């Protein structure tokens, strides 16, 4: 395990859970699986056992440490890398969920993140609903609300009904089900707390006992069979552990099936142009309840899927503009719930084609439901007619469509929202088809692009679309590497890198020739990149004496190595930012302490939340003097700056490590 990653994780853990937890985590991280006794003997001789136990329990509660008890009833602890690193992403996770499922859902997730894992009953307990399942509280401290710049203001205390607040138990269950279905929350079973290696062992033993009673798996045929059985049992266990509306919901059998859902949704979407939801929220919460003893936790893998979608949309926007990217966003939104995780380690594909075949598909109808109705689809493609009805100028008076003079000459009209949904809506069949047609055209643009943002798997005529995530994830990795090279070594170096990636190994002169650069310039670039670890060279002797002067040097680009390099540098960058933040914080310690005291003595003061150091929600703001406020503002600014940097570095980590789902450095 890279020491930079350990640094990042311990830094975050120490911030949230204190020094003892950090020590435990670091000891476990560096030593691998360890028993409590060894742990104490190793690093924590001076710490009382009870303290160690409490901290360990806390780490397990937050799914940062996993444990396994073997046949001799020794319990081994080991770190959960994904969980620990995930602490850094909590703020972002909340934002991602908010953009997909709304503020209330995001609030619930924020709460689960703060508790660690919990049962449905525990969570309901926090809300403190009365016997009728309605909220007893008048303030919404528990459901923080985000505003644009990452600050969360939970202004409350007002007596009237707060729309951001979950009003009833039924609503909470409704939201939880929504989150579980989307995969942002997951059901936790006993196995969720075991290290994967132990689960794997367990499965291996089971398969051995059942299918190979003689205990022999010699020969390639038997080994393949063994592997198949192991994978199928793994799949079964995973499927069993997964949330299912049918199994896990009380009275789940009479649920509305997803298919029906879609029909209903589509009708509504087609009928209402400006998305004004006419029905009220409470109407829908009558669904079934989740069992109170069900354990739930946040599913970080799913958040990675969401992050990947965001990155892909940005990438598409760069090449094809925001309108086409908007359609791409819709396509990805349809696919997202169908993608379990970026990691599909239980299926083995023979080749890339097969892997692509396994990716989910979306129909153009489904995509249309997710396209922002405000998006002016026609403006993104030359010669396309608007799908909005009454496109001609004569319609000006009938419908509230205004013409912007600047747009007049390209035939794009300015749409003004009309209160009358009937006129503005896609009431006519023709405009609906027109819209589908436009969406399809955008999809075709995405397909046509060199990067193949999407593809049509089916036969011609059938409009189904698929995204080849494995390949595109690699594209994102390349792009991230190229950006890094660009900034560090300049555009000529990017040319060299891209060229070598395409052409393989080349001699210095060959590089210069292909890149149309002077040999002496190329030589400097190659040397610089090699020194930084971004290029490799291979010596090919020309004669049997292997004289260095008579040797040929072939240059090449080792993608895997560079990706690892960038990843580790990003880790180190994050660690340094966090460490610096500690140092900076000390400078402001006095004022921060004072705020703390004030807060303790004056609990009724207006409170607000900010996304704290590691992205967790923190409270900020309290009555202070002008100078103090300035100080505090200065600290906030510093913090904000460092945090933004951490977030951007985390983006690099996500691209390099997570999106391909092929990373093995973090297996527990």
């Amino acid at each position, binding site marked *: 395990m890279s020491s930079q990653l350990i640094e990042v994780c311990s830094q975050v853990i120490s911030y949230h859970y204190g020094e003892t937890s950090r020590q435990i985590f670091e000891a476990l991280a560096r030593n691998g699986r360890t028993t409590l006794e060894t742990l104490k003997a190793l690093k924590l001789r001076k710490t009382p056992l009870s303290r160690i136990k409490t901290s360990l329990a806390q780490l397990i509660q937050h799914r940062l440490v996993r444990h396994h008890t073997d046949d001799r009833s020794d319990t081994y602890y080991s770190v959960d890398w994904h969980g620990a690193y995930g602490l850094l992403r909590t703020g972002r996770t909340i934002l991602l969920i908010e953009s997909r499922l709304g503020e209330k859902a995001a609030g619930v997730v924020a709460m689960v993140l703060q508790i660690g894992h919990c049962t449905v009953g525990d969570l309901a307990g926090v809300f403190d609903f009365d016997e009728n399942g309605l909220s007893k509280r008048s303030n919404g401290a528990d459901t923080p609300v985000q505003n644009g710049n990452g600050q969360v203001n939970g202004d409350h205390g007002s007596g009237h009904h707060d729309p951001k607040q979950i009003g009833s138990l039924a609503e909470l269950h409704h939201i939880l089900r929504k989150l579980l279905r989307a995969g942002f929350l997951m059901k936790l079973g006993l196995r969720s707390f075991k290290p994967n290696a132990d689960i794997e062992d367990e499965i291996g033993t089971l398969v051995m006992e059942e299918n190979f009673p003689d205990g022999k798996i010699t020969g390639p045929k038997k080994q393949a069979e063994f592997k198949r059985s192991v994978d199928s049992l793994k799949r079964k266990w995973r499927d069993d552990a997964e949330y299912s509306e049918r199994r896990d919901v009380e009275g789940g059998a009479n649920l509305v099936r997803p298919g029906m859902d879609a029909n209903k949704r589509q009708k509504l979407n087609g009928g209402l142009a400006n998305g004004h939801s006419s029905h009220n929220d409470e109407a829908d919460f009558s669904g079934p309840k989740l069992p109170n003893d069900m354990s739930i936790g946040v599913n970080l893998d799913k958040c990675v899927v969401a992050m990947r979608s965001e990155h892909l949309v940005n990438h598409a926007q760069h090449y094809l503009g925001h309108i086409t990217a908007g359609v791409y966003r819709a396509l990805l939104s349809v696919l997202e719930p169908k993608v379990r995780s970026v990691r599909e380690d239980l299926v083995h594909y023979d080749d890339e084609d097969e892997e692509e075949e396994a990716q989910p598909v979306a129909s153009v109808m489904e995509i249309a439901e997710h396209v922002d109705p405000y998006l002016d689809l026609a403006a993104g493609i030359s010669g396309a007619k608007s799908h909005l009805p009454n496109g001609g100028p004569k319609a000006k008076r009938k419908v509230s469509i205004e013409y912007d003079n600047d747009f007049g000459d390209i035939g794009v009209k300015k749409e003004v929202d009309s209160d009358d949904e009937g006129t503005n809506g896609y009431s006519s069949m023709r405009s609906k088809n027109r819209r589908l047609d436009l969406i399809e055209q955008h999809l075709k643009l995405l397909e046509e692009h060199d990067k193949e943002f999407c593809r049509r798997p089916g036969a011609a005529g059938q409009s189904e679309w698929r995204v080849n995530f494995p390949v595109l994830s690699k594209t994102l990795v390349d792009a991230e590497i190229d950006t890094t090279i660009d900034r560090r070594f300049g555009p000529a170096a990017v040319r060299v890198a891209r060229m070598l990636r395409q052409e393989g190994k080349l001699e210095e002169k060959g590089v210069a020739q292909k890149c149309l650069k002077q040999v002496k310039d190329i030589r400097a670039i190659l040397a610089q990149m090699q020194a930084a670890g971004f290029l490799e060279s291979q010596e090919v002797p020309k004669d049997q004496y292997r004289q260095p002067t008579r040797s040929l040097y072939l240059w090449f680009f080792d993608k895997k190595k560079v990706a690892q390099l960038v990843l580790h540098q990003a880790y180190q960058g994050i660690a340094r930012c966090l460490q610096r933040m500690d140092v900076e914080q000390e400078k402001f310690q006095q004022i921060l302490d004072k705020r703390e005291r004030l807060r303790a003595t004056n609990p009724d003061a207006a409170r607000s939340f900010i996304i704290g150091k590691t992205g967790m929600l923190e409270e900020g703001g309290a009555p202070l003097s002008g100078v103090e406020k300035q100080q505090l503002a200065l600290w906030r600014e510093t913090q904000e700056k460092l945090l933004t940097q951490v977030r951007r570095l985390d983006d*690099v980590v996500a691209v390099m490590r997570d999106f391909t789902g092929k990373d093995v450095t973090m297996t527990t």
Partner: protein
Amino acid sequence: MSKLSPEASSLHEATFANAKGSEGVKSYAQQELMKLSGIQEPGELIRIVQELVQHQLFRTLKAERTLYWAPRSKEVAASLSNLDNDERLIYEAIENSETTGIWLKRLKQNTGVAPGNVNKIIKKLESSQLIKSIKSVKSPAQRIYMLFHLAPAEDVTGGSFFDSGDLDEGLVEELGNLIVFHVRSQSWVEVKPTRSRHDRNTSPVDVDAEDGGKAGTKRKRDSTTGDDAAAPNKRRQPEPVITQVAFPAGSRGYPTADSIHSFITNSNAIRESKAASITIREVQEILNVLVWDEKLEKVGNGYRTVMGVKFRPPGSYDADGIEEIVGNGLTEAPCGRCPVFDLCAPGGPINAGNCVYFEQWLKA
């Protein structure tokens, strides 16, 4: 030396005239000589050829057990007959290297002429305009010689982008810019930059009492069906300005290497003699580079400019050529550009706490 016989003279003239206009060195086998001279009797032909060789008007080449003869001009032949043996050896070695030229060192090795002598001879041949020194792109440091009247082969000169052995980066640059200019005009429909077509903030739908300013569309889907899909960003930034609109997928009007080549050869932005010498392959080389630079992207068989790529008006000079590059989290953090990155560790002499780069960065 005896005077040239009329038959020999006419054969020389025939071959010399025939060889003219063809590039490089042209040589003739027996059959071809028979045809050119009309002499059918081999013995007779051999006699004439030998006579020409003696007069330095023909030189003999051998390839795969067949003999060939190549004519020399009368002037060259005349100067050759004035050379001594060593000089002739050197000349012939250079002559045999044809349009590739021969390296001085190799010349010394191959001819067996005393090295001290070679330099003297070379100087003499150069001054009598029989040979010249050239520069090869493949080995710019070597001194290479070639017959005076020959033009070096393309792999020696490096092609149109090379100017006496040096890459003409200015030309490559200019051509690249010209191509981007040309391709861009056919890649996108340019639109007058203008603000997004409606301003969301004034939209009545956004004021959603239930939802505190969240876009209403999403609300609808969420609450009616419990749908779990992503909806577009709700709190929108102002929409990006549209300046380039794509042609529908499947459009095939994008320029290809061929069409770009003919554009370049026909445009008068490049010196005419240069433009004429540029081959399609060379255009393709520039296209590859432009793709690696992310200025162009391939669409079908053609090319289109990457959205937003700019060009200088052809012929102008780079005034504000600094393109804004947006880095990533790594390159924008102080550590991403830190010279002591590998030495930095918590608790070490260089650490995040005492780091000066962070100091500057935080102040910036």
